């Protein structure tokens, strides 16, 4: 730890010896096997792109947001992805408020290397106007509780946030197509990001006894360990990043062994993330269907002015096209019928359309036949 303050938690010699001797016999203090992960659960928030991950006692929250910015000069048609970490002081007594310390920066950069440099997120699809405007995705990782192995939990939080994030759809408009119009989510459905693969970080802890290594160390095991290594890889078998800084020297064979274990763990975690994201997406889609049937009550008052507007419009059109008053007469009874039928959203829309087009009777008959709304 870089700042050894008076209130830093320190482990007693007894506890250290206990953990070490238990590991020599292949036992871990919380009863897990050497290569087992703790229970991983992912919960999503109300907003798209916010996820909270619980890995045993460790809690990390990831939030993804987007903004339109100018691209970097050497990459004019690619969007950007940046990761910011916040080690909240409530997570651990040694975390200080204010600027991120060394470990916060290291965690951010390890996840950044795994996500950005492995091109997990497609940045070319984030380009809006080449050289002028691109989407910048920002992921904020908040550490809420430090129960050990923050890197893995934060990585899962970042992936979960990215998988459920939706960016607003925007289109080009204006005189020469240089103006960008960002559509609000009510007008046009926001789009998900294109994610090619999920890089999963797996952390190993090495102990002074050479042959002992564990996966997913807890806070106590981290205080006892002699060295650590984080391997970020995906299910395609690509190794995206490896971070082993200092600590105990480890032979090459052990590193290769760790990478093999990490491959199996990454597969499990990927399946878990994909399942939870899918469940969230289906729930989101279900919620949207409910949302459309709700504004039936609103349109009851809404169709009346619409009808009048269209009536005026259609009358104008008639005059412009030089049609005879008989057609207008035909339209009027249609309108009266419609006023009494103010039930369904869909019905209202189709009928107004048909008015504008000077629709025939057959079109008018159709909406009645497919009344699907609840209050007709």
């Amino acid at each position, binding site marked *: 730890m870089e700042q050894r303050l008076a209130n830093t938690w320190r482990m007693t010699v007894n506890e250290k010896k206990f953990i070490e001797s238990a590991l020599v016999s292949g036992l871990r203090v919380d009863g897990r096997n050497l290569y087992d992960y703790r229970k991983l659960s992912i919960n999503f928030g109300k907003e798209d792109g916010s996820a909270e991950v619980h890995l045993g006692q460790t809690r990390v929250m990831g939030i993804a947001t987007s903004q339109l910015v100018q691209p970097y000069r050497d990459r004019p048609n690619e969007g950007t992805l940046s990761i910011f970490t916040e080690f909240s002081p409530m997570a651990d007594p040694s975390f200080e408020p204010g600027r991120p310390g060394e470990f916060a920066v290291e965690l951010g*950069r390890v996840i950044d290397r795994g996500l950005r440099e492995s091109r997990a997120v497609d940045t070319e699809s984030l380009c809006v106007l080449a050289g002028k405007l691109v989407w910048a995705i920002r992921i904020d990782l908040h550490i809420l509780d430090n129960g050990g192995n923050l890197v893995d939990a934060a990585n899962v939080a970042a992936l979960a946030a990215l998988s459920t994030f939706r960016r607003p759809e925007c289109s080009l408009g204006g005189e020469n197509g240089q103006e960008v119009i960002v559509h609000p989510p009510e007008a046009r459905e926001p789009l998900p990001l294109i994610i090619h693969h999920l890089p999963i970080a797996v952390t190993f802890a090495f102990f002074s006894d050479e042959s002992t290594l564990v996966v997913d160390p807890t806070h106590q095991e981290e205080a006892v360990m002699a060295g650590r290594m984080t391997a970020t890889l995906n299910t395609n078998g690509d190794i995206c990043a490896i971070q082993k800084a*200092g600590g105990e020297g480890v032979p090459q064979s052990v590193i290769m062994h760790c990478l093999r274990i990490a491959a199996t763990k990454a597969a499990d975690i990927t399946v878990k993330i994909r399942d939870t994201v899918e469940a969230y997406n289906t729930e989101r889609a279900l919620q949207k269907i409910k949302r459309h049937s709700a504004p039936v009550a609103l349109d009851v008052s809404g169709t009346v002015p619409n009808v009048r507007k269209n009536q005026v419009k259609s009358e104008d059109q008639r005059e412009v096209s030089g049609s005879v008053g008989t057609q207008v007469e035909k339209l009027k009874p249609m309108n009266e019928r419609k006023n009494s039928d103010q039930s369904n959203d869909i019905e209202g829309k189709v009928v107004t359309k048909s008015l504008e087009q000077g629709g025939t009777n057959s079109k008018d008959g159709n909406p009645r036949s497919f009344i699907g709304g609840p209050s007709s």
Partner: protein
Amino acid sequence: MEYVSPEGLRIDGRRPMEMRKLQAEIGVVAKADGSAVFEMGNTKVIAAVYGPREVQNRSQQLNDQALVRCEYSMANFSTGDRMRKPKGDRRSTEISLVIRQTMEACILTQLMPRSQIDIYVQVLQADGGTRSACINAATLALADAGIPMRDFVTSCSAGYLNSTPLLG
């Protein structure tokens, strides 16, 4: 763009497994306890070691071992365009952390309790592989300062381009 020609030569005429020219010099900073300049091709870094000396911040003192601190910074003029913020940005913080952890593992800190060893590394010319050059320079500077170490720590960077591993 072809980085390795069909004859197997890279842009600067090296083979894929060939490193750049290495040059080193120690005792370059008179005031420091130990110092070294390390060059790998066009990458040039200078390292200075102060220590073991008294811990400046008493609260950080370790009673059973020496405290190792490291600071990595790039000179403004080291890269092609003048750099805005040479220290304190996230990359420098991470590299400082990595170098510190590496050297801490090889220094026999148990022999110097309640003391502090400072390693300052400055990149003068950046042409790739600055991290490795810094670790090599730090090893030399520590040796020049007479600080007990387990062994030399050496470092080299490698890349992977178009299914060809490239060294240095």
